[in-house]
């Protein structure tokens, strides 16, 4: 536990600072999201070593959640998906002249929720990790499968499309050496393909290059940013009082949603807004510029970001693109996340958790005074920013294996990702299929071998049976619900 203070060494503080600043900038900029940005700086973080490198990556992840709200409120452009809801009341508050108050409440809500979720993470992650020590291949298979099914259900848009993308991801993960026998598959004798498709190359393509291509056809946000003076940042006592209940509700809701696979931060913010619309004291004002519409969702998306770290740190299974990048960062630094992380690398585990505390304080101190600067970053014309992003993507993809094949993978992934976006296929399920594919394959084959070929071996243990049953229910339920609805409308 004393390793928590690892985060306070000068090098780690600097890594945390750089990460949170980069994250805030990424959060502010429409286009590049946290997953893409984290993949871009992976080569940099490897140089820093495991603890500092992961602290920097985590800082980007948290900072993006913070920064996303700034442009939502000031110019009605959500920096990333999790702050779309904040535009509803946040921007209307800004037009009423309460931009400063909305920004301050967003920052305070993020801080409260972020801190709560770190405390919960600190308590829960070791417990889950200890329980997970008893997990065998069958349990891992069931959990990964359940995660992917839930992910397809919750990603939004068409479920069949998300499912298709998960499967494409799993298929892409079979390129290269197979996880058990060492058979080389689907390489078509291409040089560099034996190592498989680089996760960094696919991620920089799907979340970097594809965003640049998509942003070219999009309108540029208008240049005028309202100027917010420092002394305008104080919310009134009334506004603060009204923010507290939604903030607390959003925090708890967000953390719980964060434990579920899927784009949890985005979903958490919507759920929180929905709850405020139902139970909030001033619910009638929501949608016209109510402070509750900022406090709740902003707390929820930050708490969810913390909740999402639990499956990663304690089981080694990421269920969001950002935590998947964190996972691949850990792998590159030869740190295997999962039940043994706490035992084998306590300074990494506690150092990263400690950095979340430090990062939250840094973000609060950084964001309030510098809010105007960050808002202006959003109005930098893409023509000066995006070309550089393209080159960074190429370098990040190349440096993963020092291989030109990975640059090709990135270019193809980028063009495919752009087409996917136009056709409403989300890149997140594909990336997670790619990451979890080898986990699924290895655990399935190992479980079958252990059970001497009996398929029932997959659900022989209690936890595995429960998780597989849940996966089946999650797979069937939406179809059944749609069928019931259809018969009901036919009858009326």
């Amino acid at each position: 536990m004393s390793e928590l203070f690892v985060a306070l060494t000068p090098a780690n503080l600097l890594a945390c600072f750089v990460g949170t600043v980069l994250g805030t900038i990424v959060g502010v900029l429409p286009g590049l999201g946290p997953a893409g940005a984290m993949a871009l700086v992976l080569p940099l973080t490897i140089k820093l070593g495991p603890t500092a490198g992961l602290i920097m990556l985590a800082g980007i992840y948290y900072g993006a959640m913070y920064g996303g709200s700034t442009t939502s409120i000031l110019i009605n452009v959500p920096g990333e998906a999790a702050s779309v809801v904040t535009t509803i009341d946040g921007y209307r508050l800004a037009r009423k002249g309460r931009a400063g108050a909305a920004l301050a409440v967003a920052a305070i809500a993020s801080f409260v929720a972020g801190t709560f979720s770190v405390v919960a993470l600190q308590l829960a992650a070791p417990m889950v990790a200890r329980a997970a020590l008893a997990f065998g291949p069958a349990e891992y298979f069931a959990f990964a499968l359940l995660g992917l099914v839930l992910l397809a259900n919750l990603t939004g848009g068409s479920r069949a499309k998300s499912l298709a993308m998960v499967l494409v991801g799993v298929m892409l993960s079979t390129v290269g050496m197979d996880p058990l026998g060492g058979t080389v598959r689907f390489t078509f004798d291409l040089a560099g393909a034996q190592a498989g498709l680089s996760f960094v190359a696919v991620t920089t393509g799907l979340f970097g290059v594809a965003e640049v291509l998509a942003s070219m056809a999009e309108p540029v946000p208008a240049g005028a940013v309202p100027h917010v003076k420092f002394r305008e940042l104080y919310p009134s006592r009334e506004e603060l009082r009204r923010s507290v209940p939604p903030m607390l509700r959003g925090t708890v809701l967000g953390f719980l949603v964060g434990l579920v696979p899927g784009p949890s931060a985005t979903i958490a913010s919507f759920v929180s807004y929905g709850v405020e619309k139902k139970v909030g004291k001033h619910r009638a004002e929501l949608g016209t510029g109510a402070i509750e519409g900022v406090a709740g969702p902003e707390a929820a998306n930050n708490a969810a970001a913390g909740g999402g770290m639990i499956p990663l740190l304690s089981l080694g299974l990421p269920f969001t693109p950002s935590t998947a990048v964190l996972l691949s960062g850990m792998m590159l630094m030869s740190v295997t996340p999962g039940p043994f992380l706490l035992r084998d690398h306590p300074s990494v585990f506690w150092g990263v958790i400690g950095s979340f505390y430090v990062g939250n304080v840094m973000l609060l101190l950084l964001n309030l005074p510098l809010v105007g600067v960050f808002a202006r970053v959003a109005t930098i014309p893409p023509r000066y920013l995006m070309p550089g992003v393209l080159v960074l993507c190429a370098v990040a993809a190349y440096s993963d294996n020092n291989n030109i094949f990975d640059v090709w993978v990135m270019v193809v992934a980028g063009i495919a990702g752009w087409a996917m976006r136009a056709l409403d296929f989300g890149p997140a399920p594909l990336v997670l299929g790619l990451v979890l594919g080898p986990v699924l394959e290895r655990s399935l084959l190992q479980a079958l071998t252990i059970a001497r070929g009996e398929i029932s071996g997959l659900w022989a243990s209690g936890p595995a049976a429960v998780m597989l049953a849940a996966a089946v229910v999650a797979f069937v339920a939406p179809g059944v619900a749609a069928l019931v609805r259809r018969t009901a409308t036919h009858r009326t």
Partner: protein
Amino acid sequence: MRRERWSAAALALLALAYLLAARRYPLDTLATPGPGIVPLVAGVALLGVAISLFVKTGRVGAPAVSFGPPTSRAGLADPATTHETGVAPIRPTDPTPQRVRRSPIVLAVALVLYAALLPRLGFIASSFALVVIASRLMGASGWWRPAALAAGVAAIGYLLFARWLGVPLP
């Protein structure tokens, strides 16, 4: 609607091609499972999903493709905004000129050329060219600014990655 059907058909074709390529990997037995099992399961499952998508999009009243704002900023689809909150966020509107709409295709071609030329021309020259082309396509005017930007990006990229991090850039 037609685009939806085409994308479903393309997915089905992808699944078939994958299954065809997977035939050479042995399945072996369930007790000693071979490297062909997971590809077979994944390929068949994708084929099934693609067929169901194809059938669904053929039905009358199937939802049309939306070409509005991209599904997300962070790569995650936003849950139906109006449906869940009852309030639509205000979106900036700005007519997109024809030239800008065609430029992503040109940039995509430039990226393919970049990957092809990177090993021949080296990092600095090809990155310089890519940044100039990309910033021109995104609406930068003149040649001085794009060239200065490109020189800056190439130089910083080289110093940061090749010199400091020791990445053996081509």
